Each structure stands twice: as structure tokens, then as C-alpha cells.
């Protein structure tokens, strides 16, 4: 079991308030991603749940038990750090076994569990090596092994893939997701990478300035962003925002259209007119950065190759059903 509830959790460092007040309910077995720009408090929130930082106010409950003042060692959670944080003087085997040893488990049980975890993560042939003899990806796997071997109530991941190169990151992303589904253990994953958030999460918590902007499934966030911040943060390339007369015609202060929901027409007369400033041809996609005069720079995405180039004139027609409307304070308008 691993249900984690935050009730009015507050954190301040001296005068500086990092997290004003957060309520959150994370269900057993869910993969929840905290995402937000740097300094939004996502890592702090994770460390509060881990017990590595003390809360200033509020309560943290794990499986209904108040754990607010319980030391990290006794919360039954395990954590994977950005820097891996392996014990450099111990072999891979001892790194993975450390938590079990601390829990006072029998040596033969420890051996069996370590080998099982190592097999799951393809580490069996590295068990007697020291961390410094491993590559980044292997180190990350050891850190994950150390987390899973203890069969915790929940995994806490603090930007675990950000030190890996792009290709490895994608591969590890898939491995972590698969492993979590296989084990069925609750996971909280902190990242600033919205692609990681979208691909891995059952539910995403979008944080900004210590506040939850929106909590929901990846597609809910994509299709029904609660406000301008979420609309701009989720989705790549970023959503286009248009203010002024065009927005007022739609009864909104700002309207937003995702690049993939703009129909690109050569020499068209309808929609939003502009000149291509930059065209990116990826083969699978074509991204156009269009200078649309008073509307500013707009981004349009075309699936597949589109032979348009810088300087070409285009018109961008938004799909009417895919236009997001926001009021003056940035909140989404529905209906």
C-alpha cells in the first residue's frame, strides 16, 4: 500500500515562503509526476514527503498514518537522487544491500533479494564493481536497484534522468515506467521536463511558485489546461497565445492554439497571415515559426514533410474546436 496525502503542507526557509499551502492526494500504485520550472518548489515538496526537510505547517500522511514528524528512515519510502548518490566505497552489491542490512534482514535473504533486483535491472554481472567503474546509465540503475530492493511503500524520484544523455534518457524513461507498472508501487517523480512528465505519468501535478496550478492526467492537462501557465507549460512546441481584438471576438482576454492545431495553407487568404521566419524540417514533422505581424510570432506544426521555406507567405487557420480561451486573470473559460 502507498497512499500519500498532503494536508495544508507549508514550507518556509526563514522569511522566504517556498510552499504556501498544498493539499494533494496520491492514490496507491499511481505514478505521479511533479513538474514545473526551476524554483517552483517541486524538489522541496518531494523532500518534505521524504522527510529530508521538516514541514513548517500541515500534515503528511502515508496510508492514513501521520508521518509529519517521523524521520525519513522510518517512513518506508525510498528515493532515487539526481546525482545517483551511490556509496562510492561500496560495491554495487553492498550499495543495493545497504537498506536491507540497516533493516536487519538475514544475510541469505539479503543475497537473494539483491540478486533478484540486480537481475531485474540487468546488473547481475556488475555486482562486484565499485560505482566509479560504471557508466552513468548503470549507476542510475544501481540507484534504482537500491530503491526497489527494499519494497517501499512509494518511490521518490528527484530528477533521476537529468544527468544522462538524450538517448539513454529515453531508454531509462521507458524502463522506469515499465518497472513501476510491474511492481505496482506508488511513485512520485520530479522533473522539469514536460515530455518526461507527459510520457511517464498517470497524473501530473503542475507546480508554479509553490502552488499547484493543475492536477490531472496528461491528456486532461493537454486538452483542458486550467490556466495560461499550464497551457504554456504542457505541450511542445509551446501553445500560441493571441491577445487583443481577435481574443475579444471570442469573448476572452487571451486565446491559445497549439501549433499542431493550426492548419497551414499556402497563399491562403483566410485565417492568420504571416511570413515564415524559420522552417525546421525533421522529416517526421515540419515546424514553422511564422511572423504574423500584429499577432507576433506563431508556431505551427505539420506532421510529415512540408516544402515551405523562410520567406514564404502562409496563412494559419486554427481549428475552431481546439481554441482555448482564458480570462483576464489567466484562468480557462469553458463552454
Amino acid at each position, binding site marked *: 500500500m502507498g497512499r500519500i496525502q498532503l494536508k495544508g503542507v507549508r514550507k518556509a526557509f526563514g522569511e522566504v515562503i517556498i510552499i504556501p499551502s498544498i493539499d494533494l492526494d496520491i492514490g496507491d500504485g499511481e505514478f505521479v509526476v511533479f513538474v514545473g520550472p526551476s524554483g517552483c518548489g517541486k524538489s522541496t515538496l518531494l523532500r518534505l514527503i521524504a522527510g529530508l526537510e521538516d514541514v513548517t505547517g500541515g500534515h503528511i500522511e502515508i496510508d492514513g498514518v501521520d508521518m509529519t514528524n517521523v524521520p*525519513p528512515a522510518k517512513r518506508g519510502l525510498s*528515493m532515487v537522487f539526481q*546525482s545517483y548518490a551511490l556509496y562510492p566505497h561500496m560495491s554495487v552489491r553492498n550499495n543495493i544491500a545497504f537498506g536491507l542490512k540497516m533493516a536487519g534482514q538475514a544475510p541469505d535473504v539479503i543475497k537473494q533479494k539483491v540478486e533478484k533486483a540486480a537481475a531485474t535491472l540487468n546488473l547481475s554481472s556488475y555486482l562486484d564493481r565499485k560505482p566509479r567503474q560504471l557508466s552513468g546509465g548503470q549507476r542510475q540503475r544501481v540507484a534504482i536497484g537500491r530503491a526497489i530492493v527494499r519494497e517501499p511503500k512509494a518511490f521518490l524520484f528527484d530528477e533521476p534522468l537529468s544527468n544522462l544523455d538524450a538517448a539513454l534518457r529515453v531508454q531509462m524513461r521507458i524502463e522506469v515506467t515499465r518497472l513501476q507498472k510491474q511492481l505496482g508501487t506508488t511513485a512520485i517523480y520530479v522533473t522539469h521536463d514536460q515530455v518526461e512528465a507527459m510520457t511517464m505519468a498517470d497524473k501530473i501535478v503542475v507546480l508554479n511558485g509553490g502552488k499547484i496550478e493543475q492536477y490531472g492526467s496528461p491528456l486532461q492537462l493537454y486538452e483542458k489546461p486550467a490556466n495560461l501557465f499550464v497551457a504554456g507549460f504542457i505541450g511542445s512546441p509551446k501553445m500560441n497565445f493571441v491577445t487583443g481584438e481577435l481574443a475579444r471576438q471570442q469573448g476572452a482576454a487571451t486565446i491559445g492554439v497549439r501549433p499542431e492545431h493550426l492548419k497551414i495553407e499556402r497563399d491562403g487568404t483566410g485565417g492568420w497571415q504571416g511570413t515564415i521566419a524559420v522552417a525546421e524540417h525533421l522529416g517526421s514533422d515540419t515546424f514553422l515559426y511564422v511572423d504574423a505581424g500584429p499577432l507576433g510570432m506563431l508556431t505551427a506544426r505539420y506532421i510529415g514533410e512540408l516544402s515551405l521555406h523562410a520567406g514564404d507567405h502562409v496563412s494559419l487557420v486554427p481549428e475552431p474546436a481546439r481554441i482555448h480561451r482564458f480570462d483576464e486573470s489567466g484562468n480557462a473559460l469553458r463552454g
Partner: protein
Amino acid sequence: MARAHSVQRKTATTVACWLVGLVIFFPILWMAITSFKTELEAVNIPPSFLAFDWTIENYEIVQERSNYLRFVGNSILLAVGSTLVGLLFAIPAAWAMAFAPGKRTKDLLLWMLSTKMMPPVGALIPIYLLFRDFGLLDSRGGLIAVLFLLNLPILIWMLFTYFKEIPGEILEAARMDGATLWREIVYVLTPMAIPGIASTVLLNIILAWNEAFWTLNLTTSDAAPLTVFIASYSSPEGLFWAKLSAASTLAIAPILVLGWFSQKQLVRGLTFGAVK
């Protein structure tokens, strides 16, 4: 041309380094040479450098007159004892300052260091009186306590510098793995800091070994280390240069050997953290 220039420079630097090294080492060398002279030759003007009748009679007399090994035993006990007791306090203290610093940690560190700036003689009378009243004069326990307290600031400072270099996340990982504070220090922090702890220990042993002020003032015979052994040769009957030299050579020999074999560690220790 440039190459010849650089070879010249290198030679000049090497010669200069050797010269400086020799100047620094000369008193020790002179002491060692004097210890093989007769008392008469030792005070001869002009002194003879190597051309004299080499003799080991000073060593024989020194050995006859006093039990060298007992002094060595005391020196080892005091130096190692005070260092071990010091570690027991310094490791947790340095841990707290490096990983759980408070608002006043920096001030505390500076204040600790400032105690080393006070001339020890300023504290002699109160400490002497305390020793007298508690019956600690000429006791090994009492002297270990003084030496340990004397060097504790340096121990803490050095360990603090090492611990600062250890990523806090590793200790947090240990905490998440269920390690208690004590186990975190014993199983994770200490093994990772072994090189740092080793050079701190070495330096502290050398400092305690050479400590003369307190050992001379607080001991007479039972707890007397090698410093007292050397001092006993500058007696009211007059200075016996050759015997004094022999005693001094014997006194520094063990620490010289220790220093020789651990110089790599020591240099690394003293410059640690100076360059990232």
C-alpha cells in the same frame, strides 16, 4: 632557443628548491651530526663538519642515564590517545557543522580557531591549579585530556573541510535507506572520509608528539614524554650539546620515520580543498 631557456629555468628552479630544502633541513642535520661528536668537539670553534672522530658514546650515555623506551612509550600513548579521543568528539562535531549548519556555525568555527591564537601560557596557572586539585599532575590521563583539548579545534577544522567535500545527497540516501544517525556516520561518512581522517590523524599525532609546553609543565617523570627527555639534558650542571643532540635525534626519529612514509597523505591533507 626556447627549449634551452626552459631547461635553464628548470635547473635553476631545482637548484633553488634544493637550497631552500637544505637550509630548512640543516639544523636537523647539524643536530644529528653533533650527536656523534664528543662534548669537546661539539663546542669547538670553528666547528668541524664531518672531519672528526665519530662516536656513539653519547647514545650509550643517554641510554644509560634514562630509560628512552619509557619516554617513547609515553609519547606514543599521549599522541595516539589524545588523537583518538579527539576523533571521538571531532567527527560528530565536524559532521554537524558540515551537514547541519546553524546560523552561528561559521562564528563557532572562527571562535574555535581563535583559541589557538591565545598564548598557552595564559592558561597555564588555572590549568595547573586544576591539575593539582584533581590530582592529575604527572598523570597520563590528565595530559591526554589537555593535548586533546588543545588540538581539538584543528581536528574539527580539518575534518570539517573534508566533510564539506562529501555530497550531502549520499548521506541523505543513507538516511532514506533506514540508517540511523550513528550508522550513517560509521558506515557511510567515515569510510568515505578515510583519506581526510588519515591525514588529520597524522597531523594531530605530530602536533601532540611535539607539544612541549604542557608536557614540560604538567609532568615530571611518570607521564613524561620525549619532550621532557630532551629537556632533561639542558640541566643546571650546564648544557651538554652532544648528549642533548643525541637525545633529540632519538626523540624525533620515530616521528620523522612516520612523516617520511606518510608525506604524500600529509601534503594532500594540508592542501585539500585549496584547489577544486
